[in-house]
């Protein structure tokens, strides 16, 4: 049987724009994937999974400059002689960050765009678009634009695009992330039943992966290795530090005073402007409470209103009816934003200064009650706690470090309550749990939004569920 992918002696280093040279990501890496096989490649975060996927799709180093050596063949074609657009019908890539892959203005146009490139006739395009949208539950959102979709809905759009293109080789980068259980099961079924060659890249071993793959590989020490599965999972667990004790287990949280955040009879509406169907989405919260020291989880399917509720809770969006009270006092949006810290899923939206030191001291310098020396001490202590170097440039730091910096900024703000939106989606469990532990040091109440049941099990004290906009305690 022909190899769908053959990589021989691949080495890659990103170009450095600073004084410090970038570390080599792959060193004499070899990988063979047989046509029609299903492969899982595990690697901890920031070890080059996405880079490998982009190299296979021929867009790296073309758009992400670096030095590459070695030989890569996709279905026998040498990638050195192929342009990315020539791989359209051969290889489909689903990115870890769905937002970065959107090129069209609506769900329907997004699915149709590559089909137009393939030069298909209108009738066939219509059929493929309709089938893919129906299959991924996007039929009613066909005219919606990407900014009006939730993270899970965006991921489903990319999977619908992949299904519509019907390429021979699928590269799915953290494709199970962001999806709720229903869609995870569907994706699993699609991988299992189809005759495609599938390469799934993952930084966490999910229960869904059991018995799904022909081969499970590990990216370790810049090379791909394939020991026996039990040994591989053990090594992977070590690399992700999952074998270490749960950082929350030993933490005794004793808040100096007990503060309470309560929502009652809250009703809010969100409108999608780009579609007449499902134009109005209602969020209803009969009762919600969070108090100092508590760690609660919020779970719910894609598009159920988790982020909408979070935005209301931290004062970014308004509501039509009900009240949000802190310690019994109803607060306005502006007041809420200073009580409830909201860590966005994407840390890059909350980091904007040239150095870690600037980032950490930005909020403190705006306080009139702090002297320069006090600020310096607080910043140094915080950097130490979160494992950050004050002179580092956030833009060139790794994703887990940027996430840690985002948390460190909020740690210094010392909010009584925090909302952590999908904190675990690009971090190891251990890193995510360590961040939670540090944020709770002063007794803050934490609301954690997650899709990952395994992660939720490690932290939850109480759980709220939200479905079709209605929140209830489980």
């Amino acid at each position, binding site marked *: 049987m022909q190899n769908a992918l053959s990589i021989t002696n691949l080495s890659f280093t990103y170009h450095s724009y600073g004084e410090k040279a970038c570390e080599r990501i792959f060193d004499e890496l070899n990988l063979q994937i047989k046509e029609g096989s299903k492969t899982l490649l595990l690697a901890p975060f920031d070890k080059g999974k996405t880079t490998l996927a982009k190299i296979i799709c021929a867009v790296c180093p073309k758009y992400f400059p670096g030095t590459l050596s070695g030989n890569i063949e996709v279905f026998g074609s040498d990638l050195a002689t192929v342009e990315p657009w020539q791989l*359209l019908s051969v290889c489909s890539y689903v990115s870890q960050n769905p937002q970065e*892959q959107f*090129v*069209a*203005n609506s769900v329907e146009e997004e699915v149709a765009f590559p089909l*137009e490139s393939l030069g*298909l006739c209108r009738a066939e*395009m*219509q059929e493929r678009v309709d089938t893919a949208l129906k299959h991924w539950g996007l039929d009613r959102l066909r005219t919606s634009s990407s900014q009006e979709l939730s993270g899970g809905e965006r991921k489903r759009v990319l999977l619908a695009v992949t299904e519509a293109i019907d390429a021979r080789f699928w590269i799915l980068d953290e494709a199970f992330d962001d999806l709720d259980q229903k869609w995870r099961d569907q994706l699993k079924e699609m991988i299992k039943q189809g005759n495609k060659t599938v390469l799934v890249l993952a930084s966490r071993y999910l229960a869904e992966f059991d018995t799904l793959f022909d081969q499970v590989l590990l990216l370790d020490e810049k090379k791909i290795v394939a020991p026996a599965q039990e040994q591989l999972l053990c090594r992977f667990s070590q690399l992700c530090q999952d074998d270490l004790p749960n950082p929350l287990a030993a933490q005794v949280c004793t808040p100096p005073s007990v503060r309470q955040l309560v929502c009652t009879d809250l009703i809010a509406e969100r409108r999608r402007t780009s579609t007449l169907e499902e134009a109005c989405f209602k969020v209803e919260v009969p009762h919600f409470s969070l108090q100092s020291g508590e760690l609660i989880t919020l779970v719910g399917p894609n598009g159920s209103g988790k982020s909408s509720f979070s935005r209301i809770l931290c004062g970014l969006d308004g509501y039509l009816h009900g009240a949000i009270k802190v310690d019994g006092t109803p607060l306005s949006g502006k007041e809420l934003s200073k009580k409830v810290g909201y860590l966005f899923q994407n840390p890059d939206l909350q980091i*904007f200064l040239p150095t870690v030191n600037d980032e950490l001291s930005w909020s403190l310098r705006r306080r009139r009650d702090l002297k320069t020396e006090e600020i310096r001490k607080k910043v140094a202590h915080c950097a130490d706690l979160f494992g950050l170097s004050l002179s580092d440039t956030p833009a060139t730091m790794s994703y887990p470090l940027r996430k840690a910096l985002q948390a460190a900024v909020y740690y210094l703000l010392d909010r009584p309550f925090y909302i952590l939106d999908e904190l675990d989606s690009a971090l190891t469990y251990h890193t995510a749990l360590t961040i939670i532990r540090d944020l709770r040091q002063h007794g803050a109440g934490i609301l954690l939004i997650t899709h990952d049941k395994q992660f939720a099990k490690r932290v939850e004290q109480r759980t709220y569920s939200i479905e079709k906009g209605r929140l209830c305690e489980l």
Partner: protein
Amino acid sequence: MTINTFVAGKGLLYRFDPRAKLLTVVLLCIWFFLPVRLVGLYTVVGLLILLGALNTGFSHILKTFLSILPMLLFMVLFMPFNVRNGESLISIGSFTLITAEGLEQAVRLAGRFIGITYACTLLFATTVMQEVMLALRAFHLPYKAGLVVTLAFTYIPFIAESFSQIAESHSLREAESEQGKRIFQRLKDLVPTLTSALVFALRSIPNLAMSLELRGFGGEEKRSSFKDLSSYRHPFTHTLLSCIMLVGFWVLFRVK
């Protein structure tokens, strides 16, 4: 990395042929610079606003106005001081501060700016981008040039959206003791927000280029089209109607 400017609706403008709409917008932009009376200029602007409110809703019209308000104020406030000709309206001693002509030009400039903004906004709010692209191609613009135009019109709102997201995140980082901010502090806070939005936009460029290529853009083969404009049955009538209206306004409001 692109943002939809389309606002779903069922009004008259949604049924208007995209080719006719595109041509009307171009002609309107020219019309606003013809020598017409102020009352005529503002009548056409008023009609555009009314048309917009009936089709895309009053809140969309208001949002559009608020988004251009800072630039509008900047232009209108400084314009009267630049024009020194005409009857003096306000003077300090022998120094003329504002003249009647300066004031008239400022009001005219504001009218043109508002009019052009609404004409373009209504085109993109009532036409899906793929139909804008088809309309451009109907005027023999090559596909790649058309894509660049439509991408630009969706990428600018993307940067604007990123800017507002970043501004939101900055507001969440304010210290608890901070009270109402002064104008100077607000302006100072704009610098990091603008820098972050710019960095964010620049970092997204390789991703956009990558995604376009992965979707087959760049190939030499002829692309097919998912949509066509056959559902719009009266392009000629709509174009004629637009031209007649514009000529009518010109005859009615021209400076004699």
